[in-house]
């Protein structure tokens, strides 16, 4: 019997719980179609800004010896308006549009660009750790978080998620503010501030010097955050951080995530990873006799 992998993240229903994380292969509709066909339940776009951004000079991404990646791409993106016209032909793919901005009006403007597009949710990036005035700096400003979410919720009927990370404000405060402002779900976590220095040339490798750590090294931290959020709030969670196997995915479900996002592991294992993780989850559900993902969400909290 084929296992039902569908999941609900608050108001959003997906056929499969594996989602392409923001900033990974995320700038073309053709690529989104390919990743959807490869098994992803949804795709999150690169974080889009009001105007196009070129991002930082290379080097922008490299791996950490022993596992994981450090990146400071600098949120390069074609801008919300260009992007909206590019995905306009979309019929099939559940696209979650990720947005970055500094003030609530930026978000209002960007949401309006997508009025004629098939978008299943918005994800507000309150957590990019390496660009000034957006991302984490916004997530750390609870007043601004409140204003942005209220504005966005007013501007659209589509579900809105907030993506949090570990900044200088306790992320639990950011989540609490977002929940109070009416958010539909929380994505946790983004990359964590990190750097690497080459010892021969004695320089930081990234052109931006400091970037974000992703991949397997951050997984235990992400699991802890998902567990804490689900313990403290009645809010659907999308887990992100170091997921590269089906076992990792199940661990996030047990911690309280209703869906998971896959980022860096696409670089390590390529696009077949969505199918592999879906199959592994199915087999686990069969063994444990679950008929829905929801049956295992948050189970670790009871123990």
């Amino acid at each position, binding site marked *: 019997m084929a296992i039902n992998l569908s999941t609900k993240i608050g108001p959003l229903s997906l056929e499969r719980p594996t989602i392409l994380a923001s900033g*990974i*292969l*995320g*700038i073309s509709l053709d690529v989104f179609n390919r990743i959807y066909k490869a098994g992803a339940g949804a795709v999150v776009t*690169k974080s889009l800004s009001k105007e196009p951004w070129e991002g930082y000079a290379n080097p922008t*991404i490299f791996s950490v010896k022993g596992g994981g*990646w450090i*990146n400071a791409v600098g949120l390069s993106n074609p801008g919300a308006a260009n992007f909206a016209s*590019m995905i306009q032909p979309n019929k099939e793919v559940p696209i979650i549009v990720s947005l970055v901005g500094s003030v609530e009006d930026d978000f209002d403007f960007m949401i309006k660009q997508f009025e004629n597009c098939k978008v299943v949710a918005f994800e507000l990036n309150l957590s990019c750790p390496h660009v000034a005035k957006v991302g984490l700096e916004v997530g750390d400003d609870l007043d601004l978080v409140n204003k942005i979410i209220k504005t966005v919720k007013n501007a659209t009927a589509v579900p809105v998620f907030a993506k949090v990370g570990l900044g200088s404000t306790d992320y639990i405060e950011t989540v609490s503010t977002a929940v109070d402002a009416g958010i539909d779900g929380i994505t946790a976590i983004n990359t964590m501030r990190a750097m690497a220095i080459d010892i021969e040339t004695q320089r930081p490798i990234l052109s931006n010097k400091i970037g974000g750590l992703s991949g397997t090294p951050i997984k235990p931290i992400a699991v802890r955050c998902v567990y804490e959020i689900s313990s403290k709030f009645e809010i659907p969670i999308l887990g992100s951080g170091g997921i590269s196997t089906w076992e990792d995915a199940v661990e996030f479900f047990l911690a309280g995530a209703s869906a998971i996002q896959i980022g860096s592991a696409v670089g390590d294992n390529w696009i077949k990873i969505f199918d592999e993780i879906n199959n592994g989850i199915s087999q686990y559900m069969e063994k444990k006799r679950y008929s829905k993902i929801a049956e295992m969400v948050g189970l670790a909290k009871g123990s």
Partner: protein
Amino acid sequence: MQRDPNYPTICKIEKVIDETPSVRTLIFSDDVLPNVLPGQFAMVWIPGVNELPMSVMISHEQGKAAFTIRKLGEASTGLYNVAVGKYIGIRGPYGNSFDIKEGKLLLVGGGTGLVPLLRLLTFVKPSDDVTVLIGAKTKAEVFFEDMANDILEKNPHRVLVVTEDGSYGEKGLVTDLVEKIITETKFEAVYTCGPELMMYKTVQLSHEKGIFVQASLERMMKCGIGICGSCCIGEDLVCRDGTIFDGDHLLANKEFGHTFRTKAGILDKF
């Protein structure tokens, strides 16, 4: 610890060769890059400047690899100016390689697009009959003609140069010569690397004649390994699915020969 292909390995430049007034080859020692497959590239870090994708050039010495750079913008000029004794960082090798056929082969290159084609020449069988076409704007920009002849010394071969101003070799566009030559000779395979419009025409002409053809593409690259998405063309990621693609696959891609993405990811026309 074993070498991590995705973390920069630091190499010291040992020798610099000027190929033309604006093209230079940098030679260095390395364990991995001398033995890559034809068509593979590396991400090359110029500390303090930038990081660029570069095809891996052959060298004539054991254990040594090279890059051949045309100076253009800030990043490539930075690499071009790395002096003997200074360091670069390399990640990779990345990308797939040419599918090497046997028999009558045609290679069509322009500028630094010749780099992967020269490595391909080192993989041909002694019995292969090889034609190399080199396109350039003018005589001063022609390079690697002698090197191609040297590599093919033991093969039936010819190396023909076409310049747009006629200052050397035949006058015209290299694709005019491609058209003429593939009408006269039945080739087993055509391989091309260089400016996209040259490759587009070459792929079209070869495909019409039913000849197996492959082209090596360039797109904006950041990660080189299929994470950032900046190198996409249609549904393909040039760094991971390519850089080498079959002609029929390319002709079905509406972006090939028409559009590319800028650093911000905006579609622009060639």
